[in-house]
């Protein structure tokens, strides 16, 4: 899911710290964002906007942290509104709903572990590219 790569240049310590913080931001947001999934996206978006003018390494990782939230945003929003409709409307709990929640949990846990790993590696100045999101970031973020 994640692969360490060599970046186009050797990032400095201050860059590594900032880049790593973008992932920490999304980790903290996961906790607050579970009941309201949009918070995850907003937190990383604010961090991204704040570092838009940063160095390439920082921008690249802020972008990856932001786009990596997209899949979870869809998965968690669906789960959130499905749960709300069960609690407040005539919608009933089905095996399909429970299966969805399990799948959502697996994807959340996978993303959580990957984010944690990336935050640690990036802090050391190691460039970590995620599957899908790494390539997507390459397309969006240019030097």
């Amino acid at each position, binding site marked *: 899911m994640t692969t360490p790569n060599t970046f186009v240049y050797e990032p400095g310590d201050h860059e590594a710290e900032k880049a790593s913080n973008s992932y920490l931001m999304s980790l903290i947001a996961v906790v607050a964002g579970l009941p309201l999934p949009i918070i995850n996206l907003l937190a990383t978006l604010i961090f991204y906007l704040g570092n838009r003018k940063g160095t390439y390494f920082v921008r690249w990782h802020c972008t990856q942290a932001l786009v990596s939230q997209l899949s979870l945003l869809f998965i968690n929003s669906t789960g959130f509104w499905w749960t709300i409709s069960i*609690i*407040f409307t*005539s919608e009933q709990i089905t095996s399909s709903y429970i*299966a969805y929640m399990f799948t959502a949990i*697996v994807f959340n846990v996978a993303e959580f572990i990957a984010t944690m790993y990336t935050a640690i590696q990036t802090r050391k100045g190691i460039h970590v590219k995620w*599957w*899908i999101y790494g*390539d997507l970031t390459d*397309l969006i973020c240019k030097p």
Partner: protein
Amino acid sequence: MKKVLFQILVLVAVFYGMWFGLSKVDWLKIFKVEQASKKTEEKLGELFWEVFSKTEKEVKNKKVTLPVDSLLTKLCEANGFDRKEIKLHVIESDDVNAFAFPNKHLVVFTSLIADSRSEAELAGVMAHELAHIQKNHVMKKLIKEVGLSALISITTGGSAGSEVIKSMAKTLSSTAYDRSLESEADMKAVDYLIEAKIDPAPFADFLARLGKDEPEEMKHLTWISTHPESKERSEKIIESLDGLTYDTQPVLAPETWELLKEKVKE
């Protein structure tokens, strides 16, 4: 770009594949969800009936209850429902009404019997309420009106007093179900009636007739006010019968029906 799109497709496929695979497991059985909701319904039915029976007078006269029971038994037996599961109550009231409570309580008011011109009309309304019971509309409506969390808190001895239960019982007896649920109950009622060899046409007539009544006469016609668009529903039933052939057999002897009408008018 192509690589990214392909990877996104793979991710979506993995997600749906996992979801599809997991939904093949009967989680409801594993987590005993059905058992829990059945217990909630049983408890609610008990609480509702306890509160409702305190304010209303239940008819115990066998000349009234037995013929109504015979109609219900006929409907149940012909459609493979367990008659013992359904708790039938005949209530003395000026309101023309019939409704269902949770845990398969079926309540019929004496004025509904008095207003029915034939046993088939009464059986039609009962079949309609039976459909609400069999299709779990009662719990669906309650969950929609008050929410699942409130229902669970009531049944687990939460903060709800008898006033809350009373108002919920009122909701069930005096407000309409969703139009789609009403329509489903009508169509199911027609099926039940045909299976029981009872003519469904008088049920449509009953709806049409009560729908036509003058507003001042409507004040006691609760069943009609809680079942709006009677005319359209009546037409829909007639339409569904078009081209159908079915046998009919009387359930009650004519004199039993007459005696029943006489007793409820007393």
